[in-house]
């Protein structure tokens, strides 16, 4: 089990990098699809099958299809992103690496002191429904306001007249 977990972690990293460095937009979208599927495996490992399936259906099934449609409709060609190593990007990469090391060090030092209390939540469909309509009612409602704002925003920016 542990081996599968680490193999999956390795591949999700590879797919994530594939999104960034893919020269063909469609290939990047495909990497994203595989990345989402590997993410859903984490949910299966954590024992929440429902969330794993939702991840596959919503992200892999819905969002990637949308992205693929946009790529096809806009007719994006092969892009050649130029990764010239200028001084600025070099400093950026070094700072990012230091930052990542800092996060890993800090969390790694503290992670020994955790007392995992599993399972945190009941992740069955009923359990998630229960959480949404009790403890997480307010975030759920605020998320709906957020989505409404997003829809109106997209409408405002997309329509022709001012």
């Amino acid at each position, binding site marked *: 089990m542990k081996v599968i977990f680490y193999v999956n972690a390795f591949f999700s990293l590879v797919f994530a990098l594939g999104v960034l460095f893919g020269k063909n937009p469609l290939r990047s979208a495909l990497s994203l699809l595989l990345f989402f599927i590997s993410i859903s495996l984490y949910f299966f490992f954590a024992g929440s099958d429902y969330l794993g399936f939702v991840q596959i259906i919503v992200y892999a099934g819905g969002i990637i299809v949308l992205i693929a449609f946009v790529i096809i409709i806009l007719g994006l060609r092969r892009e050649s992103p130029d990764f010239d190593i200028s001084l600025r990007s070099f400093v950026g990469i070094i700072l990012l690496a230091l930052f990542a090391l800092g996060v890993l060090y800090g*969390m790694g030092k503290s992670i020994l002191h*955790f007392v995992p209390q599993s399972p945190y939540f009941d992740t069955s469909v009923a359990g998630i429904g229960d959480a949404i309509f009790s*403890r997480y009612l*307010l975030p759920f409602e*605020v998320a709906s*306001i957020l989505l409404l704002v997003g829809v109106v925003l997209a409408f*405002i*920016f997309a329509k022709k007249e*001012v």
Partner: protein
Amino acid sequence: MNAHILLPEIILSITAALVLIIEFLTPRRLQFIGTVTILGILLALFYDLSMFRNAGIGFYGMVKVGPFDRMFDLIFFIGAILLILLSFDYFVEISGEFYFFLITSLIGMMLLAKSSDLFMLFLSLETLSFSLLGLIGILKRKEFVAEATLKYFVLAAFSSAFFLFGIILTYVIFQTTNISEISNKLFAAGLTGIKPGIIVTLVLLTVGLAFKIAAIPFHMWTPDVYEGAPAPVVAFLSAGPKAAGFAIILKTLLSGYQAHPEIWKGIVTYLAVFTMFWGNLAALKTRNLKRMLAYSTIAHAGYVLVAIVSVNQEAYAAIVFYMLSYTFMVFGAFAIISMIGDSHSNLEDYAGLSRTSPLLAFMMAIFMISMTGIPTTSGFISKFYVFMSAAKTNHIWLVIFGFINGAISAYYYLRVVVYMYMMDAREEHAVPYFPFLRSVMWIAVIFIFYLGLFPQKVFEIIVSTL
């Protein structure tokens, strides 16, 4: 569940839906929609004030409301109403969704000040950022607006990612996102063993928050957004959302980690010093009034951060008082900028204003003097309270840095006055009469002098809410 403590937010959500429906039925009747919005806001304000002293926890610990949070609500309401008044004269033809975004941003800010759960905090922060995008980009055909909107969008998303990462790692450490539970766990267990992890999470959270309040070195978006966005929106941006940013800092750093202030004090001290100096020094070189006020708002954020470093009751009240008085100053200044015109905001455009419209020049001088912090204005009193709280907690160096910065800022604020009174205009053109812009200007002046001359009563009210 205690749902009634969020009644103002519920009223505002209904108003937001109503505004969308009215815009659909009778498009582009701005004054009508604006009036409906004001009525909704006043109704929410009425319920907010009627429940002012009721403290309580609601929605399974997601929100925790006290009188102090309702003080922040007051600042947001004032900002929103002044923005609506400005919008009546400023915008000729826009879609009524502007008011929808205004209300949702208000809901976001109010929930930010009240949420006691990091998860909730993140969602309301996103609601706020998205609504502000709508406000900034509403005149999407105008010059620089697309640039301002895109910059704000990218950097808001970027900072939210940092903030979210911080929240996730906090959950990993504490197995909860509830701020009071985090605080309890820190009081009970202390820092043994988890200190490096907590520092990592605090750095991530601070980076996310520093973007929101435009602290150095996360301020890059501010000048461009301020230059591109419509002037009334800029005034709102530097009053309401900034106050909301400080409300989150009070929530996360001061309440969540109150058992161990020493772990975040260092970060915030450096942030305060650099923000004050960089903001003021950059403003010296700027000759565009909107960009200059952008750097000045960075510097003002630095002053407020000084109050956050000195963790005591008075500092809390000083922050609220500062944001209240800053709201009036910035709305007054941007009301006049709106009258002169967004595209005429270079210093040269203000030359000789004292001859063409003496009243406007005099008012602008008052706003500039108040921002400098010269006595009898509210700018002086608010700076006084901030530095007083820092001096009482022995942060003498911060007070000295603050005074140096006050002196630096006098140069560029008073330069505007010099241009208005001592330079000759290249071409004289009369400023049209805008009733609503003028009313905002008068409201701002009245409150600047009221808070400047009789601050005691307001300050006592704020202290009594703590």
